[in-house]
């Protein structure tokens, strides 16, 4: 059952080496930075198998039977919450949804108290979305449950980046050397921050483009090419990732009008023609049609936006499954099994 005895257990197309981990070392998934490159690939490989589960007539496996997962959402979310919930249910976990508006938060309870109260009920996992960066770090300090960051303020949205990488890999075969241009409201985007880390680890060349007022400082130091020219960003790109203009996070004026934003930064068919002939267009949603993306592009043949949504379930299943396994305790490659329950010698 140990990996050393079974080189055969690798899928032949897997890029993982023999020494690759077969479980995650981290208890929580707060940031892409928590994952080693091998662990990222393990998640993506596992997600491929999970995707098959979604094609069955009975789309449910018993892997997380008896696990309690709390979806604690302090910000509104349709896509991410639904995606997590479907993933949890497909793995047979017991799921509980807590939305901020219906909770004691509206009565003035602190996040720390909310978390401590949930923790007292011994959930196995908490999927947390919150408007404050680092909310997951606070939760991880207070809770024994595994914390999955489903978006913390402007910090990170790690599962979305994993979904994006999975979708790109599926379409392009791999990420190494790909030219990925991320265009839009970089400053307020947690998707951008997670993708920045993930894409660079997987060897993509990242170009970030947006208005000067929505740029991050020091981007060149992060290994990213930064430009305010959308034509420059699109030219020759293999992947174009558009980011939502997050008007709700903006204090004051970052650009004169939506109209001007669309004129300068919106993705149109004309602009898309400058990209590589087989370029794909991505968007983490929800989209502002006519602001960062023209409808013809969003609904066009290059768009993989709905594939991203579809892949979201498989990738989140992989994350849930692997984190549940990581809770068991020891490091990978440790001493082999207890002989007690004795699995058949079926290579497992």
């Amino acid at each position, binding site marked *: 059952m140990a990996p050393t*005895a079974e080189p055969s257990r690798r899928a032949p197309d897997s890029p993982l080496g023999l020494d690759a981990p*077969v479980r995650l070392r981290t208890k929580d998934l707060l940031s892409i930075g928590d994952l080693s490159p091998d662990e990222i690939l393990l998640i993506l490989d596992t997600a491929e*198998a999970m995707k098959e589960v979604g094609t069955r007539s009975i789309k449910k496996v018993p892997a997380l039977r008896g696990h309690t997962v709390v979806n604690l959402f302090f910000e509104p979310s349709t896509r991410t919450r639904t995606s997590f919930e479907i993933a949890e249910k497909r793995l047979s976990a017991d799921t509980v949804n807590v939305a901020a508006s219906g909770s004691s938060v509206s009565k003035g309870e602190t996040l720390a108290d909310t978390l401590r109260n949930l923790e007292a009920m011994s959930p196995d996992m908490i999927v947390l979305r919150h408007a404050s960066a680092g909310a997951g770090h606070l939760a991880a300090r207070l809770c024994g449950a595994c914390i999955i960051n489903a978006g913390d303020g402007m910090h990170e949205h790690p599962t979305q980046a994993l979904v994006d990488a999975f979708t790109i890999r599926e379409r392009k075969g791999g990420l190494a050397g790909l030219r990925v241009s991320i265009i839009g409201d970089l400053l307020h985007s947690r998707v951008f921050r997670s993708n920045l880390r993930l894409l660079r680890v997987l060897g993509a060349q990242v170009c970030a483009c947006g208005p000067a007022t929505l740029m991050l400082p020091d981007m060149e130091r992060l290994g990213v090419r930064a430009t305010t020219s959308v034509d420059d960003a699109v030219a020759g790109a293999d992947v174009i990732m558009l980011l939502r203009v997050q008007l709700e996070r903006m204090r004051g004026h970052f650009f004169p009008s939506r109209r001007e934003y669309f004129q300068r930064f919106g993705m149109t068919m004309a602009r898309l023609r400058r990209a590589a002939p087989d370029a794909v267009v991505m968007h983490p949603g929800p989209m502002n049609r006519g602001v960062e993306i023209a409808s013809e592009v969003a609904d066009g043949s290059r768009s993989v936006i709905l594939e991203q949504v579809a892949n979201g379930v498989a990738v989140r299943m992989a994350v849930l499954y692997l984190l549940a396994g990581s809770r*068991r305790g020891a490091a990978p490659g440790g001493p*082999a099994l207890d002989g007690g*329950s004795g699995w058949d010698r079926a290579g*497992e």
Partner: protein
Amino acid sequence: MPLVMAAEQVARTITRIAHEVVERHRTLGDLALVGIRTTGAPIARRLSTELHGIGGVRVPTGALDITLYRDDLMRHQVGPQPILRRTDIDFSIDDRRILLVDDVLYTGRTIRAALDALIDFGRPRTIELIVLVDRGHRELPIKPDYVGRTVPTAVGESVQVRLREVDGRDEVVIHDGPDR
């Protein structure tokens, strides 16, 4: 590391099992082979080839990953987490007679998981179990229909089936110590 079966024996055993299958099933038309990953899958493909040679029929063959059906995800405090691989069954199993194939039959827990998984894919008419080696020590009421070889073992030992497709050579060996 004592050799239980050499390459030649492995090949002959698979051929023999194929003949037994043909004997027991007058028609091969509604059969399907499902190999349990990892090592059961190539054995199933070899059986499929043998059945084609004997009966002239292409028996649909799939591979089943039972990782998500295991009962020990949270039970082991140490050791690696099993790697999840794809299940590939690109045919309907409804009303088919399924030949479930695995390399070694031990506690029976893998087969229990495989049965659960198969049932989620549909409603086969029958399921029969083919194993290359039966090493005893059952913990569940599971019995194979076709056995390549029965090998008496101690609980502390482990039996390993190596195949050309995966390991570069065919052999079955037994060694001391827990599964490695």
